[in-house]
Protein backbone atom coordinates (compact mmCIF):
# COMPACT_ATOMS: atom_id res chain seq x y z
CA UNK A 1 0.00 0.00 0.00
CA UNK A 2 2.79 2.42 0.96
CA UNK A 3 4.61 1.58 -2.26
CA UNK A 4 1.47 2.20 -4.28
CA UNK A 5 1.05 5.54 -2.52
CA UNK A 6 4.59 6.70 -3.26
CA UNK A 7 4.36 5.49 -6.85
CA UNK A 8 1.10 7.36 -7.35
CA UNK A 9 2.68 10.56 -6.05
CA UNK A 10 5.77 10.01 -8.16
CA UNK A 11 3.66 9.31 -11.22
CA UNK A 12 2.75 13.00 -11.63
CA UNK A 13 5.91 14.67 -10.34
CA UNK A 14 5.09 18.19 -11.53
CA UNK A 15 1.62 18.14 -10.04
CA UNK A 16 2.90 16.65 -6.79
CA UNK A 17 5.69 19.26 -6.66
CA UNK A 18 3.30 22.14 -7.32
CA UNK A 19 0.94 20.85 -4.62
CA UNK A 20 3.84 20.56 -2.20
CA UNK A 21 4.87 24.16 -2.98
CA UNK A 22 1.30 25.41 -2.58
CA UNK A 23 0.90 23.74 0.80
CA UNK A 24 4.45 24.54 1.92
CA UNK A 25 3.90 28.31 1.49
CA UNK A 26 1.45 28.29 4.39
CA UNK A 27 3.70 26.05 6.49
CA UNK A 28 6.68 28.35 5.81
CA UNK A 29 4.73 31.35 7.07
CA UNK A 30 3.58 29.53 10.20
CA UNK A 31 7.02 28.13 11.03
CA UNK A 32 8.79 31.44 10.38
CA UNK A 33 6.32 33.36 12.54
CA UNK A 34 6.35 30.73 15.30
CA UNK A 35 10.12 30.64 15.62
CA UNK A 36 10.25 34.44 15.56
CA UNK A 37 7.45 34.84 18.11
CA UNK A 38 9.11 32.31 20.37
CA UNK A 39 12.28 34.39 20.13
CA UNK A 40 10.33 37.43 21.28
CA UNK A 41 8.74 35.52 24.16
CA UNK A 42 12.11 34.24 25.34
CA UNK A 43 13.62 37.72 25.19
CA UNK A 44 10.67 39.18 27.10
CA UNK A 45 10.92 36.51 29.78
CA UNK A 46 14.61 37.29 30.20
CA UNK A 47 13.93 41.04 30.12
CA UNK A 48 11.34 40.83 32.89
CA UNK A 49 14.00 39.22 35.06
CA UNK A 50 16.96 41.31 33.91
CA UNK A 51 19.46 42.04 36.66
CA UNK A 52 17.85 39.23 38.68
CA UNK A 53 14.66 41.25 39.16
CA UNK A 54 11.63 39.34 40.37
CA UNK A 55 9.12 41.87 39.09
CA UNK A 56 9.07 44.68 36.56
CA UNK A 57 6.59 47.45 37.34
CA UNK A 58 5.02 49.66 34.63
CA UNK A 59 2.33 52.30 34.34
CA UNK A 60 -1.06 50.67 33.85
CA UNK A 61 -3.27 51.17 30.80
CA UNK A 62 -0.58 52.16 28.32
CA UNK A 63 -0.60 51.20 24.65
CA UNK A 64 2.85 49.64 24.86
CA UNK A 65 5.56 49.16 27.48
CA UNK A 66 7.78 51.88 26.05
CA UNK A 67 5.05 54.50 26.64
CA UNK A 68 4.97 53.78 30.37
CA UNK A 69 5.91 56.82 32.50
CA UNK A 70 6.38 56.64 36.28
CA UNK A 71 7.62 59.22 38.73
CA UNK A 72 11.07 58.09 39.74
CA UNK A 73 10.98 59.45 43.27
CA UNK A 74 7.44 58.88 44.53
CA UNK A 75 6.68 55.53 42.87
CA UNK A 76 10.20 54.31 43.60
CA UNK A 77 9.76 55.20 47.26
CA UNK A 78 6.32 53.52 47.44
CA UNK A 79 7.72 50.32 45.99
CA UNK A 80 10.78 50.37 48.21
CA UNK A 81 8.49 50.73 51.25
CA UNK A 82 6.94 47.30 50.68
CA UNK A 83 8.51 45.02 53.30
CA UNK A 84 9.27 42.13 50.95
CA UNK A 85 11.12 44.40 48.51
CA UNK A 86 14.91 44.27 48.67
CA UNK A 87 15.75 46.80 45.95
CA UNK A 88 14.07 49.01 43.35
CA UNK A 89 15.90 50.23 40.24
CA UNK A 90 14.31 52.72 37.88
CA UNK A 91 15.05 52.45 34.17
CA UNK A 92 14.22 54.48 31.09
CA UNK A 93 13.70 53.00 27.65
CA UNK A 94 13.73 55.12 24.58
CA UNK A 95 14.14 54.70 20.86
CA UNK A 96 16.86 56.92 19.40
CA UNK A 97 17.77 57.44 15.79
CA UNK A 98 21.49 57.00 15.38
CA UNK A 99 23.04 56.98 11.93
CA UNK A 100 19.48 56.79 10.55
CA UNK A 101 18.88 53.55 12.39
CA UNK A 102 16.39 53.08 15.23
CA UNK A 103 18.37 52.01 18.29
CA UNK A 104 17.05 51.08 21.74
CA UNK A 105 18.46 53.26 24.50
CA UNK A 106 18.44 52.06 28.11
CA UNK A 107 19.07 54.38 31.02
CA UNK A 108 20.10 53.28 34.52
CA UNK A 109 21.80 55.08 37.33
CA UNK A 110 25.54 54.58 36.83
CA UNK A 111 25.82 52.52 40.00
CA UNK A 112 23.33 50.05 38.50
CA UNK A 113 24.73 49.90 34.97
CA UNK A 114 26.93 46.94 35.90
CA UNK A 115 23.70 44.88 36.35
CA UNK A 116 22.81 45.17 32.68
CA UNK A 117 25.35 43.05 30.78
CA UNK A 118 25.91 39.33 31.07
CA UNK A 119 29.55 40.07 30.24
CA UNK A 120 31.76 42.97 29.23
CA UNK A 121 33.38 42.33 25.86
CA UNK A 122 35.64 45.38 26.08
CA UNK A 123 36.14 48.39 28.34
CA UNK A 124 34.01 49.07 31.40
CA UNK A 125 30.67 50.50 32.53
CA UNK A 126 29.94 54.22 32.18
CA UNK A 127 30.61 56.20 35.33
CA UNK A 128 29.78 59.67 34.00
CA UNK A 129 26.83 61.22 32.17
CA UNK A 130 28.75 61.70 28.94
CA UNK A 131 29.80 58.04 28.77
CA UNK A 132 27.93 55.21 27.12
CA UNK A 133 28.38 51.51 26.53
CA UNK A 134 27.20 49.60 23.47
CA UNK A 135 25.70 46.17 23.07
CA UNK A 136 27.56 43.97 20.57
CA UNK A 137 24.95 44.50 17.86
CA UNK A 138 24.68 48.23 18.56
CA UNK A 139 28.46 48.47 18.11
CA UNK A 140 27.98 47.16 14.56
CA UNK A 141 25.04 49.44 13.84
CA UNK A 142 26.71 52.66 14.99
CA UNK A 143 30.16 51.51 13.88
CA UNK A 144 31.95 52.67 17.05
CA UNK A 145 34.28 50.96 19.52
CA UNK A 146 35.75 51.61 22.95
CA UNK A 147 37.44 55.01 23.01
CA UNK A 148 35.45 56.41 20.07
CA UNK A 149 33.08 59.35 20.30
CA UNK A 150 29.48 59.08 19.15
CA UNK A 151 27.33 62.11 18.46
CA UNK A 152 23.68 61.69 19.44
CA UNK A 153 21.21 64.56 19.00
CA UNK A 154 24.07 67.03 18.84
CA UNK A 155 25.89 65.85 21.96
CA UNK A 156 29.09 63.83 21.93
CA UNK A 157 29.40 60.70 24.07
CA UNK A 158 32.47 58.61 24.80
CA UNK A 159 32.10 54.87 24.22
CA UNK A 160 33.68 53.30 27.33
CA UNK A 161 32.48 49.71 27.05
CA UNK A 162 31.07 46.98 24.81
CA UNK A 163 28.79 44.48 26.49
CA UNK A 164 27.08 41.22 25.62
CA UNK A 165 23.70 40.06 26.87
CA UNK A 166 21.66 36.89 26.45
CA UNK A 167 18.72 39.19 25.77
CA UNK A 168 18.92 39.86 22.06
CA UNK A 169 17.46 43.38 22.14
CA UNK A 170 19.88 44.44 24.88
CA UNK A 171 22.71 43.52 22.52
CA UNK A 172 21.24 46.07 20.15
CA UNK A 173 20.99 48.76 22.85
CA UNK A 174 23.02 51.74 23.95
CA UNK A 175 23.28 52.09 27.73
CA UNK A 176 23.27 55.60 29.18
CA UNK A 177 23.32 57.04 32.63
CA UNK A 178 19.72 57.56 33.74
CA UNK A 179 19.74 61.37 34.05
CA UNK A 180 21.28 61.79 30.61
CA UNK A 181 18.73 59.54 28.89
CA UNK A 182 15.87 61.20 30.83
CA UNK A 183 17.11 64.48 29.45
CA UNK A 184 17.53 63.15 25.90
CA UNK A 185 14.05 61.61 25.95
CA UNK A 186 12.45 64.64 27.60
CA UNK A 187 11.48 62.52 30.61
CA UNK A 188 13.21 64.35 33.46
CA UNK A 189 12.28 62.79 36.81
CA UNK A 190 10.43 59.95 35.07
CA UNK A 191 11.24 56.32 34.35
CA UNK A 192 9.70 53.71 32.08
CA UNK A 193 9.76 50.86 34.60
CA UNK A 194 11.11 49.70 37.93
CA UNK A 195 13.05 46.47 38.29
CA UNK A 196 12.03 45.14 41.69
CA UNK A 197 14.09 42.54 43.50
CA UNK A 198 12.45 40.79 46.46
CA UNK A 199 13.94 39.33 49.60
CA UNK A 200 14.73 35.61 49.29
CA UNK A 201 11.62 33.50 49.94
CA UNK A 202 9.16 36.33 49.28
CA UNK A 203 5.94 35.43 47.49
CA UNK A 204 6.24 37.13 44.11
CA UNK A 205 2.57 36.72 43.20
CA UNK A 206 1.44 38.17 46.54
CA UNK A 207 3.71 41.21 46.17
CA UNK A 208 2.55 41.71 42.60
CA UNK A 209 -1.07 41.58 43.75
CA UNK A 210 -0.41 44.03 46.54
CA UNK A 211 1.29 46.51 44.21
CA UNK A 212 -1.62 46.44 41.79
CA UNK A 213 -4.20 46.65 44.60
CA UNK A 214 -2.55 49.54 46.42
CA UNK A 215 -1.55 51.32 43.21
CA UNK A 216 -4.18 50.81 40.50
CA UNK A 217 -2.06 53.04 38.25
CA UNK A 218 0.66 50.34 38.22
CA UNK A 219 1.04 46.85 36.78
CA UNK A 220 3.57 44.36 38.14
CA UNK A 221 4.85 41.68 35.82
CA UNK A 222 6.54 38.52 37.04
CA UNK A 223 6.92 36.72 33.73
CA UNK A 224 6.39 36.88 29.98
CA UNK A 225 2.95 35.30 30.32
CA UNK A 226 1.80 38.46 32.15
CA UNK A 227 3.32 40.84 29.66
CA UNK A 228 0.00 41.47 27.94
CA UNK A 229 -0.85 43.69 30.95
CA UNK A 230 1.45 46.27 29.43
CA UNK A 231 1.89 45.28 25.82
CA UNK A 232 -0.52 43.23 23.67
CA UNK A 233 1.92 42.98 20.77
CA UNK A 234 3.14 39.50 21.64
CA UNK A 235 -0.33 38.14 22.16
CA UNK A 236 -1.38 39.63 18.84
CA UNK A 237 1.60 37.93 17.21
CA UNK A 238 0.67 34.64 18.85
CA UNK A 239 -2.91 34.94 17.67
CA UNK A 240 -1.66 35.86 14.22
CA UNK A 241 0.28 32.60 14.10
CA UNK A 242 -2.88 30.64 14.92
CA UNK A 243 -4.90 32.63 12.39
CA UNK A 244 -2.23 32.06 9.78
CA UNK A 245 -2.13 28.38 10.69
CA UNK A 246 -5.88 28.20 10.17
CA UNK A 247 -5.61 29.95 6.80
CA UNK A 248 -2.74 27.61 5.85
CA UNK A 249 -4.92 24.61 6.71
CA UNK A 250 -7.89 25.93 4.70
CA UNK A 251 -5.84 26.92 1.63
CA UNK A 252 -3.66 23.81 1.86
CA UNK A 253 -6.72 21.58 2.18
CA UNK A 254 -8.24 23.11 -0.94
CA UNK A 255 -4.99 22.54 -2.85
CA UNK A 256 -4.71 18.94 -1.62
CA UNK A 257 -8.41 18.36 -2.35
CA UNK A 258 -7.97 19.67 -5.90
CA UNK A 259 -4.96 17.44 -6.51
CA UNK A 260 -6.56 14.35 -5.05
CA UNK A 261 -9.84 15.00 -6.86
CA UNK A 262 -7.98 15.15 -10.19
CA UNK A 263 -6.02 12.07 -9.23
CA UNK A 264 -9.19 10.12 -8.40
CA UNK A 265 -10.87 11.19 -11.63
CA UNK A 266 -7.83 10.21 -13.67
CA UNK A 267 -7.73 6.83 -11.99
CA UNK A 268 -11.43 6.02 -12.14
CA UNK A 269 -10.76 2.93 -14.24
CA UNK A 270 -7.89 1.80 -11.98
CA UNK A 271 -10.04 2.21 -8.89
CA UNK A 272 -12.72 0.19 -10.68
CA UNK A 273 -10.18 -2.57 -11.32
CA UNK A 274 -9.15 -2.56 -7.66
CA UNK A 275 -12.79 -2.85 -6.63
CA UNK A 276 -13.34 -5.59 -9.22
CA UNK A 277 -10.46 -7.69 -7.85
CA UNK A 278 -11.98 -7.50 -4.39
CA UNK A 279 -10.63 -4.37 -2.74
CA UNK A 280 -13.07 -2.96 -0.19
CA UNK A 281 -14.09 0.73 -0.30
CA UNK A 282 -12.26 1.22 3.02
CA UNK A 283 -9.00 0.14 1.44
CA UNK A 284 -9.46 2.58 -1.44
CA UNK A 285 -10.15 5.37 1.07
CA UNK A 286 -6.97 4.51 2.98
CA UNK A 287 -5.01 4.65 -0.28
CA UNK A 288 -6.35 8.13 -1.11
CA UNK A 289 -5.79 9.39 2.46
CA UNK A 290 -2.23 8.06 2.47
CA UNK A 291 -1.49 9.86 -0.76
CA UNK A 292 -2.88 13.13 0.59
CA UNK A 293 -0.94 12.70 3.84
CA UNK A 294 2.18 11.95 1.81
CA UNK A 295 1.88 15.24 -0.08
CA UNK A 296 1.14 17.12 3.13
CA UNK A 297 4.07 15.55 4.99
CA UNK A 298 6.52 16.40 2.21
CA UNK A 299 5.11 19.94 2.23
CA UNK A 300 5.52 20.20 6.00
CA UNK A 301 9.17 19.09 5.81
CA UNK A 302 9.88 21.53 2.99
CA UNK A 303 7.91 24.21 4.85
CA UNK A 304 9.82 23.65 8.10
CA UNK A 305 13.22 23.90 6.44
CA UNK A 306 12.27 27.00 4.43
CA UNK A 307 10.41 28.53 7.37
CA UNK A 308 13.40 28.29 9.70
CA UNK A 309 15.68 29.59 6.93
CA UNK A 310 13.30 32.50 6.31
CA UNK A 311 13.10 33.35 10.02
CA UNK A 312 16.91 33.29 10.28
CA UNK A 313 17.23 35.45 7.19
CA UNK A 314 14.56 37.93 8.29
CA UNK A 315 16.07 38.34 11.74
CA UNK A 316 19.57 38.81 10.40
CA UNK A 317 18.57 42.01 8.62
CA UNK A 318 20.00 45.14 10.18
CA UNK A 319 16.61 46.51 11.22
CA UNK A 320 15.53 43.31 12.98
CA UNK A 321 18.66 41.70 14.32
CA UNK A 322 18.69 43.99 17.37
CA UNK A 323 15.23 42.92 18.42
CA UNK A 324 14.72 39.24 17.85
CA UNK A 325 16.48 35.95 17.43
CA UNK A 326 14.33 33.02 16.29
CA UNK A 327 13.99 30.09 18.69
CA UNK A 328 14.10 26.78 16.83
CA UNK A 329 12.72 23.98 18.99
CA UNK A 330 10.16 21.21 18.59
CA UNK A 331 7.08 23.48 18.68
CA UNK A 332 7.12 24.83 15.09
CA UNK A 333 7.88 21.37 13.75
CA UNK A 334 5.04 19.80 15.70
CA UNK A 335 2.78 22.62 14.55
CA UNK A 336 3.81 22.02 10.93
CA UNK A 337 3.25 18.29 11.35
CA UNK A 338 -0.17 18.95 12.88
CA UNK A 339 -1.08 21.27 10.02
CA UNK A 340 0.10 18.64 7.50
CA UNK A 341 -1.99 15.89 9.07
CA UNK A 342 -5.11 18.07 9.37
CA UNK A 343 -4.94 19.49 5.86
CA UNK A 344 -4.01 16.10 4.39
CA UNK A 345 -7.04 14.47 5.97
CA UNK A 346 -9.44 17.35 5.35
CA UNK A 347 -8.22 17.77 1.76
CA UNK A 348 -8.61 14.07 0.99
CA UNK A 349 -12.08 13.61 2.46
CA UNK A 350 -14.09 14.66 -0.58
CA UNK A 351 -11.89 12.86 -3.16
CA UNK A 352 -11.88 9.74 -0.98
CA UNK A 353 -15.67 9.89 -0.76
CA UNK A 354 -15.78 10.27 -4.56
CA UNK A 355 -13.53 7.21 -4.93
CA UNK A 356 -15.84 5.11 -2.80
CA UNK A 357 -18.78 6.09 -5.03
CA UNK A 358 -17.09 4.59 -8.07
CA UNK A 359 -18.94 1.46 -9.11
CA UNK A 360 -16.55 -1.15 -10.49
CA UNK A 361 -18.88 -1.89 -13.40
CA UNK A 362 -19.14 1.76 -14.40
CA UNK A 363 -15.43 2.31 -13.87
CA UNK A 364 -14.56 -0.59 -16.16
CA UNK A 365 -16.72 1.02 -18.86
CA UNK A 366 -15.05 4.42 -18.21
CA UNK A 367 -12.84 5.62 -21.07
Amino acid at each position, binding site marked *: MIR*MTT*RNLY*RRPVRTALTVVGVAVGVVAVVALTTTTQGFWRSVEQWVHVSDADLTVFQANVAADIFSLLDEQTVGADLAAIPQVESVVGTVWHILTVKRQPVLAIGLRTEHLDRLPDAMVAGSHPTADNEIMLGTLARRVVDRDVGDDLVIQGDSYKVVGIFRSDIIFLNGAIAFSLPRLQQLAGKEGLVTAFQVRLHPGADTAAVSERIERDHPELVAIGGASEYSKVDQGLEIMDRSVWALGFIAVVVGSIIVANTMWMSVLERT*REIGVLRAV*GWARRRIVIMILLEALGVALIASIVGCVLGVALAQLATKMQVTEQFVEPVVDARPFLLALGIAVVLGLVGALLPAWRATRISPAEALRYE
Partner: protein
Amino acid sequence: MSNPDGTHTPIIEARGLVKHFDRGRVRAVDRVDLTIAGGEFVAICGPSGCGKTTLLNLIAAIEQLDAGALRVDGHTLSGLSEQAANEFRRASVGLVFQLHNLLPNLTSLENVQVPMLPNRRPPHERHERAMSLLAQVGLTDRAHALPATLSGGERQRVAIARALANAPRIVLADEPTGALDSQNGERLLHLLRELQQAVGTTLLVVTHNPDIAGHADRVFHMLDGCMAS
Protein backbone atom coordinates in the same frame (compact mmCIF):
# COMPACT_ATOMS: atom_id res chain seq x y z
CA MET B 1 -15.17 -30.97 -10.44
CA SER B 2 -16.12 -34.60 -11.22
CA ASN B 3 -18.70 -36.54 -9.22
CA PRO B 4 -18.19 -40.26 -8.49
CA ASP B 5 -20.60 -41.07 -11.28
CA GLY B 6 -18.53 -39.09 -13.78
CA THR B 7 -20.86 -36.10 -13.99
CA HIS B 8 -19.68 -32.61 -13.07
CA THR B 9 -21.18 -30.50 -10.31
CA PRO B 10 -22.30 -27.13 -11.67
CA ILE B 11 -20.10 -24.28 -10.50
CA ILE B 12 -22.23 -21.63 -12.20
CA GLU B 13 -26.01 -21.96 -12.25
CA ALA B 14 -28.10 -19.15 -13.64
CA ARG B 15 -31.88 -19.21 -13.92
CA GLY B 16 -33.89 -16.44 -15.58
CA LEU B 17 -31.24 -13.75 -15.12
CA VAL B 18 -32.42 -10.25 -15.89
CA LYS B 19 -30.44 -7.02 -15.83
CA HIS B 20 -31.79 -3.64 -16.88
CA PHE B 21 -30.02 -0.36 -17.49
CA ASP B 22 -31.23 3.17 -18.07
CA ARG B 23 -34.07 2.85 -15.53
CA GLY B 24 -35.42 -0.29 -17.11
CA ARG B 25 -35.46 1.04 -20.66
CA VAL B 26 -32.58 -1.24 -21.75
CA ARG B 27 -32.77 -4.94 -20.93
CA ALA B 28 -29.12 -5.99 -21.23
CA VAL B 29 -29.63 -9.53 -19.99
CA ASP B 30 -33.03 -11.07 -20.61
CA ARG B 31 -34.07 -14.29 -18.85
CA VAL B 32 -30.77 -16.07 -19.31
CA ASP B 33 -30.35 -19.65 -18.12
CA LEU B 34 -26.88 -21.06 -17.94
CA THR B 35 -25.21 -24.01 -16.23
CA ILE B 36 -21.46 -24.49 -16.29
CA ALA B 37 -19.68 -27.39 -14.64
CA GLY B 38 -16.44 -27.10 -12.69
CA GLY B 39 -13.36 -27.33 -14.90
CA GLU B 40 -15.14 -26.47 -18.13
CA PHE B 41 -13.91 -24.02 -20.75
CA VAL B 42 -17.02 -22.23 -21.97
CA ALA B 43 -17.22 -19.48 -24.57
CA ILE B 44 -20.13 -17.08 -24.88
CA CYS B 45 -20.14 -15.52 -28.32
CA GLY B 46 -22.20 -12.72 -29.69
CA PRO B 47 -22.02 -9.33 -31.35
CA SER B 48 -21.04 -6.18 -29.48
CA GLY B 49 -23.81 -4.93 -27.23
CA CYS B 50 -25.59 -8.29 -26.96
CA GLY B 51 -25.18 -8.37 -23.17
CA LYS B 52 -22.34 -10.82 -22.76
CA THR B 53 -20.13 -8.47 -20.71
CA THR B 54 -23.09 -7.68 -18.46
CA LEU B 55 -23.65 -11.40 -17.98
CA LEU B 56 -19.98 -11.80 -17.07
CA ASN B 57 -20.26 -8.89 -14.59
CA LEU B 58 -23.30 -10.51 -12.99
CA ILE B 59 -21.39 -13.77 -12.55
CA ALA B 60 -18.46 -11.80 -11.05
CA ALA B 61 -20.82 -9.99 -8.66
CA ILE B 62 -19.68 -6.70 -10.16
CA GLU B 63 -23.25 -5.93 -11.20
CA GLN B 64 -26.32 -6.82 -9.17
CA LEU B 65 -29.01 -8.76 -10.98
CA ASP B 66 -32.55 -7.39 -11.18
CA ALA B 67 -34.30 -10.76 -11.34
CA GLY B 68 -33.52 -14.45 -11.52
CA ALA B 69 -31.31 -16.72 -9.48
CA LEU B 70 -27.57 -17.02 -9.71
CA ARG B 71 -25.38 -19.40 -7.79
CA VAL B 72 -21.60 -19.29 -8.32
CA ASP B 73 -19.10 -21.50 -6.53
CA GLY B 74 -21.61 -22.19 -3.78
CA HIS B 75 -22.52 -18.52 -3.28
CA THR B 76 -25.99 -17.19 -3.96
CA LEU B 77 -25.27 -13.85 -5.58
CA SER B 78 -28.66 -12.18 -5.35
CA GLY B 79 -28.77 -9.89 -2.34
CA LEU B 80 -25.09 -10.40 -1.56
CA SER B 81 -23.74 -7.72 0.80
CA GLU B 82 -20.93 -5.54 -0.47
CA GLN B 83 -18.42 -7.10 1.89
CA ALA B 84 -19.50 -10.59 0.89
CA ALA B 85 -19.26 -9.61 -2.79
CA ASN B 86 -15.69 -8.34 -2.23
CA GLU B 87 -14.73 -11.56 -0.48
CA PHE B 88 -16.43 -13.64 -3.21
CA ARG B 89 -14.52 -11.81 -5.96
CA ARG B 90 -11.23 -12.22 -4.12
CA ALA B 91 -11.65 -15.91 -3.37
CA SER B 92 -13.69 -17.40 -6.22
CA VAL B 93 -13.19 -15.30 -9.32
CA GLY B 94 -10.27 -14.15 -11.43
CA LEU B 95 -10.92 -11.47 -14.02
CA VAL B 96 -9.22 -10.84 -17.35
CA PHE B 97 -10.32 -7.72 -19.18
CA GLN B 98 -10.15 -6.80 -22.86
CA LEU B 99 -7.81 -3.95 -22.05
CA HIS B 100 -5.32 -5.45 -19.63
CA ASN B 101 -6.19 -2.80 -16.98
CA LEU B 102 -2.85 -3.15 -15.25
CA LEU B 103 -1.95 -0.39 -12.81
CA PRO B 104 0.51 1.67 -14.86
CA ASN B 105 2.85 2.65 -12.03
CA LEU B 106 3.31 -0.85 -10.64
CA THR B 107 5.63 -3.47 -12.08
CA SER B 108 4.37 -6.79 -13.46
CA LEU B 109 5.29 -8.44 -10.18
CA GLU B 110 3.43 -5.80 -8.12
CA ASN B 111 0.39 -5.91 -10.41
CA VAL B 112 0.09 -9.66 -9.91
CA GLN B 113 0.19 -9.11 -6.13
CA VAL B 114 -2.62 -6.51 -6.11
CA PRO B 115 -5.52 -8.98 -5.57
CA MET B 116 -3.54 -10.66 -2.76
CA LEU B 117 -3.03 -7.42 -0.76
CA PRO B 118 -6.35 -7.50 1.13
CA ASN B 119 -5.73 -11.15 2.10
CA ARG B 120 -3.01 -10.27 4.64
CA ARG B 121 -0.62 -12.83 3.21
CA PRO B 122 2.98 -12.30 4.31
CA PRO B 123 4.93 -10.27 1.73
CA HIS B 124 7.38 -13.09 0.97
CA GLU B 125 4.48 -15.47 0.23
CA ARG B 126 2.87 -12.90 -2.06
CA HIS B 127 6.17 -12.40 -3.81
CA GLU B 128 6.75 -16.13 -4.29
CA ARG B 129 3.22 -16.70 -5.55
CA ALA B 130 3.46 -13.80 -8.01
CA MET B 131 6.85 -14.96 -9.29
CA SER B 132 5.51 -18.48 -9.75
CA LEU B 133 2.53 -17.17 -11.74
CA LEU B 134 4.75 -14.96 -13.89
CA ALA B 135 6.89 -18.05 -14.56
CA GLN B 136 3.75 -19.93 -15.64
CA VAL B 137 2.90 -17.21 -18.16
CA GLY B 138 6.55 -17.05 -19.29
CA LEU B 139 7.35 -13.59 -17.96
CA THR B 140 9.92 -14.22 -15.23
CA ASP B 141 12.37 -11.91 -16.96
CA ARG B 142 9.74 -9.12 -17.17
CA ALA B 143 8.80 -9.24 -13.50
CA HIS B 144 10.19 -5.79 -12.75
CA ALA B 145 9.03 -4.13 -15.94
CA LEU B 146 6.33 -1.46 -15.91
CA PRO B 147 3.28 -2.07 -18.13
CA ALA B 148 4.30 0.74 -20.47
CA THR B 149 7.44 -1.21 -21.42
CA LEU B 150 5.56 -4.47 -22.15
CA SER B 151 4.04 -5.54 -25.46
CA GLY B 152 0.27 -5.99 -25.72
CA GLY B 153 0.62 -9.77 -25.46
CA GLU B 154 2.89 -9.51 -22.43
CA ARG B 155 0.46 -7.16 -20.65
CA GLN B 156 -2.39 -9.59 -21.23
CA ARG B 157 -0.25 -12.44 -19.87
CA VAL B 158 0.46 -10.38 -16.74
CA ALA B 159 -3.30 -9.80 -16.49
CA ILE B 160 -3.86 -13.57 -16.64
CA ALA B 161 -1.28 -14.09 -13.89
CA ARG B 162 -3.10 -11.44 -11.82
CA ALA B 163 -6.43 -13.20 -12.41
CA LEU B 164 -4.92 -16.42 -11.02
CA ALA B 165 -3.30 -14.72 -8.02
CA ASN B 166 -5.76 -15.95 -5.40
CA ALA B 167 -6.12 -19.39 -7.06
CA PRO B 168 -9.76 -18.76 -8.03
CA ARG B 169 -12.02 -21.62 -9.07
CA ILE B 170 -13.40 -19.55 -11.94
CA VAL B 171 -11.61 -17.30 -14.43
CA LEU B 172 -13.86 -14.87 -16.29
CA ALA B 173 -12.32 -13.32 -19.38
CA ASP B 174 -13.95 -10.48 -21.28
CA GLU B 175 -12.65 -10.32 -24.85
CA PRO B 176 -9.16 -11.31 -23.69
CA THR B 177 -7.78 -11.27 -27.22
CA GLY B 178 -9.71 -8.21 -28.33
CA ALA B 179 -6.71 -5.88 -28.23
CA LEU B 180 -4.23 -8.39 -29.70
CA ASP B 181 -3.31 -9.35 -33.25
CA SER B 182 -4.44 -12.81 -34.37
CA GLN B 183 -1.09 -14.51 -33.68
CA ASN B 184 -0.81 -13.13 -30.15
CA GLY B 185 -4.51 -13.81 -29.61
CA GLU B 186 -4.03 -17.45 -30.55
CA ARG B 187 -1.03 -17.78 -28.21
CA LEU B 188 -2.97 -16.23 -25.37
CA LEU B 189 -5.87 -18.64 -25.81
CA HIS B 190 -3.47 -21.58 -25.79
CA LEU B 191 -1.98 -20.24 -22.58
CA LEU B 192 -5.40 -19.81 -20.97
CA ARG B 193 -6.35 -23.32 -22.05
CA GLU B 194 -3.12 -24.80 -20.66
CA LEU B 195 -3.49 -23.06 -17.34
CA GLN B 196 -7.16 -24.00 -17.10
CA GLN B 197 -6.33 -27.66 -17.73
CA ALA B 198 -3.30 -27.64 -15.43
CA VAL B 199 -5.17 -26.17 -12.45
CA GLY B 200 -8.67 -27.41 -13.24
CA THR B 201 -10.10 -23.91 -13.17
CA THR B 202 -13.40 -23.15 -14.83
CA LEU B 203 -12.84 -20.74 -17.70
CA LEU B 204 -15.63 -18.59 -19.06
CA VAL B 205 -14.70 -16.39 -22.01
CA VAL B 206 -17.01 -13.88 -23.63
CA THR B 207 -16.07 -12.77 -27.12
CA HIS B 208 -17.45 -11.55 -30.39
CA ASN B 209 -14.72 -13.54 -32.14
CA PRO B 210 -16.15 -16.87 -33.34
CA ASP B 211 -12.62 -18.31 -33.80
CA ILE B 212 -12.26 -18.57 -30.02
CA ALA B 213 -15.13 -21.04 -30.02
CA GLY B 214 -12.79 -23.63 -31.50
CA HIS B 215 -10.83 -23.71 -28.23
CA ALA B 216 -13.82 -24.09 -25.90
CA ASP B 217 -15.54 -27.21 -24.60
CA ARG B 218 -18.91 -25.58 -25.10
CA VAL B 219 -20.09 -22.45 -26.86
CA PHE B 220 -23.15 -20.33 -26.10
CA HIS B 221 -24.46 -17.61 -28.35
CA MET B 222 -26.10 -14.44 -27.14
CA LEU B 223 -28.25 -12.02 -29.07
CA ASP B 224 -30.09 -8.99 -27.73
CA GLY B 225 -29.59 -10.07 -24.13
CA CYS B 226 -30.93 -13.60 -24.66
CA MET B 227 -29.21 -16.92 -25.04
CA ALA B 228 -29.68 -18.11 -28.58
CA SER B 229 -30.38 -21.75 -29.06
